[in-house]
């Protein structure tokens, strides 16, 4: 496969970048703008909240051009199916395309998903014509259920949101990859560039992250590192790694030695 032709397709739309990034928690808008640029991401997540009636504050949309980036509204903070569906309907009415990052949180401390509510919300949103990208746990059975419900991808967590713990269960991710046909995007828990590379090397189709970039000492440099890591991880996966062996195999010829 030519790497140049390697693209990610979500809901019928094609993207060259396999890195999806969030827009939260940046120290300021100019840093966010530069980090988004450095990441090479084409899809950026946004949250849906009450407008600030105090007009002294700037709006995110003054800084993120919807013509340049595909904005992916999330349902962060939703603990019920109702709230998640309501949020998606509002996001669509506010002018977004119909692709959403669906999350239904089940626990405040871990922010792990409430998967029964997630599945139920996903079914409703698919019926409403949404392209649903669900944030789920690293459970292959739930991933299959979400695919069967019509989700356009599944987005298993690597570790708790914002934890930076990296990929805690690569074996489950491998099983998910063998279980579903839709793209698998690792969402949440990535901390460093090597985590992102591992996700792609495992065969995942993309990575979505926010805190790992926004919370870094130098978010712009980290965004660039993540771009490179995702690209390197994908190339490494496509190239096909060597088998692991317990013992050495010489790289230099044994013939022609003069000692």
């Amino acid at each position, binding site marked *: 496969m030519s790497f140049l032709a390697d693209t990610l397709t979500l809901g019928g739309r094609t993207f060259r970048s396999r890195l999806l990034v969030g827009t939260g928690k940046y120290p300021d808008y100019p840093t966010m703008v530069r980090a988004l640029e450095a990441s090479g991401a084409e899809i950026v997540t946004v949250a849906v*909240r009450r407008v600030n009636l105090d007009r002294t504050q700037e709006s995110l949309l003054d800084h993120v051009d919807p013509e340049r980036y595909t904005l992916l509204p999330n349902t962060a903070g939703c603990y019920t199916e109702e709230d998640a569906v309501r949020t998606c309907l509002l996001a669509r009415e506010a002018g977004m395309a119909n692709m959403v990052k669906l999350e239904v949180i089940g626990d405040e401390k871990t922010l792990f998903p409430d998967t029964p509510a997630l599945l139920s919300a996903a079914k409703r949103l698919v019926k409403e014509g949404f392209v649903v990208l669900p944030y789920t746990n690293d459970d292959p059975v739930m991933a299959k259920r979400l695919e069967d419900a019509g989700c356009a991808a599944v987005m298993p967590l690597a570790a708790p949101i914002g934890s930076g713990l990296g990929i805690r269960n690569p074996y489950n991710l491998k099983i998910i990859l063998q279980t579903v046909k839709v793209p698998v995007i690792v969402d949440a828990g990535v901390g460093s560039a090597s985590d992102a590379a591992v996700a792609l090397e495992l065969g995942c189709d993309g990575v979505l992250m926010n805190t790992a970039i926004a919370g870094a000492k130098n978010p712009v440099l980290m965004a660039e590192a993540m771009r490179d890591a995702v690209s390197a991880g994908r190339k490494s996966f496509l190239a096909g790694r060597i088998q692991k062996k317990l013992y050495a195999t010489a790289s230099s010829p044994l013939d022609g030695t003069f000692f």
Partner: protein
Amino acid sequence: MEVVVNGHSRAVTKGATVASLLRELSLPASRVAVERNREIVRKAEYEAVGLSPGDRIEIVTFVGGG
């Protein structure tokens, strides 16, 4: 008359509509979504939908998030 906008009471004139409320708040209709008493108001209906005393209006937009 009083309505509740994003959880805060607000006086609006009689005959106010969703569109007039947005104008008063200097909010561009293109960037927000509006609910009136938990029902989404379509953008095309902003001029036509009048506000009634006690209406609970939610006006949402996009903010940074992951």
